[in-house]
């Protein structure tokens, strides 16, 4: 039905009023929102009513949201945190940015995974997944693990490589405190990084993993010495 037709303006006006007030049935609500995206008359009617209705909200007593809301927004958008300790600022900033990107990539992987799953009858999901991506949002490696196992499986995506006479080293980034080395990533398209303890224990308080470029034997100092090239959020499916 074309709501923009002049003889239907009254009906459009009523529907727009109920949309702005919020009482429209779900189906009507969805349809109006969709139509408004391409029909300027409908969009105009909605925003007219939103303007009228919004004045009613003026006197709702304001309530300051908890600080975590802003932190989550910053994280989701990969913004630079307002306040970070000076020494760690560069590191944390890069991680926050990449973390947001890798969540986006993970969603992509999951969507692809679902599409794949519809075709393939059997899929064994990895309970723990980390999509490690770079500053350009390109996925470099995907880490997976099963609870109780003492290793992480890493698959290289595309042509991620540490360069000649260099190695990738995997790091666990705790909420607070310095990165913890997990081990040098062996060469190969699908490899394992052995862990001292079961993976769910090792990563129990670890929100993020990262990969830096190091000398062949790994960082000589116990801290990342080369650039951090990939990072990603630890996603647990349990």
């Amino acid at each position: 039905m074309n709501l923009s037709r002049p003889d239907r303006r009254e009906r459009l006006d009523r529907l727009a009023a109920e949309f702005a007030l919020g009482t429209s049935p779900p189906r009507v609500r969805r349809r109006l929102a969709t139509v408004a995206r391409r029909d300027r008359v409908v969009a105009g009617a909605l925003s007219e009513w939103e303007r009228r209705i919004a004045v009613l909200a003026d006197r709702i007593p304001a309530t300051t949201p908890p600080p975590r809301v802003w932190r989550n927004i910053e994280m989701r958008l990969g913004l630079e945190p307002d306040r970070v300790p000076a020494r760690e600022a560069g590191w944390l900033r890069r991680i926050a940015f990449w973390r947001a990107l890798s969540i986006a990539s993970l969603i992509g992987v999951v969507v692809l995974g679902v599409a794949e799953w519809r075709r393939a009858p059997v899929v064994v999901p990895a309970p723990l997944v980390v999509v490690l991506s770079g500053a350009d949002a390109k996925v470099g490696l995907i880490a997976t693990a099963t609870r109780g196992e003492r290793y992480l499986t890493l698959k290289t995506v595309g042509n991620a490589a540490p360069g000649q006479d260099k190695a990738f080293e995997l790091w666990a980034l705790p909420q607070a405190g310095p990165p913890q080395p997990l081990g040098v990533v062996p060469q190969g398209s699908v490899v394992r990084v052995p862990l001292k303890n079961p993976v769910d224990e090792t990563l129990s308080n670890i929100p993020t993993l990262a990969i830096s470029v190091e000398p062949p034997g790994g960082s000589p100092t116990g801290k990342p010495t080369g650039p951090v090239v990939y990072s990603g959020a630890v996603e647990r499916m349990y």
Partner: protein
Amino acid sequence: MSGDAQARTAAGERGERLAALLARIALSDQRAFADLYRLASPHLYAVAIRIVRDGALAEEMLQEAFVSVWHHAGTYDAAKSQPITWLTSIVRNRCLDWLRRREIDTDPLPTNDDGAPAWEPPSDGPSPVDLLIAAADAQALRGCVDLLESGPRQAIALAFFQGLSHRELASHLREPLGTVKSWIRRGLATLRRCLDAAGSAQ
């Protein structure tokens, strides 16, 4: 200067400030985004809490709304709406979409053993009708709300401030669905005439 005029000037200054911030956010200015959050989030959070009636969920709605603002600040048109109206609509629509998704094919509002609604408006704040009257005061629109009979007034207040749908209103007010729908329809028509007349008189 009268109190009303002072309030209008303050609202105008706030509007200009928010509009300037939105323009900078459209250019990916993170500092402007943080300023906008500090200025607008207490109001928007309060709007969300009243509609979804759950602090954690309201936080989530606020997050989603601000993520959307970051991406779509460029679509804000100062000629068409006040910035706070635009922002409030984003938050309200998020909350309402969430409520309506939940409502599809679910039972009406829960009731206690005696058949009374199991939830009540937040008791620590003003009721929806109080807020409607306060809003009318704020906008020097006393007459508009006074024009509403008590049924339409209560239905509109509950719908606006707490996000109740037609069906939920009917169950909460214990009136037939048809009655509630016509209250809303009549009430909105009355408000429209009055608000538009007051708007053009300013």
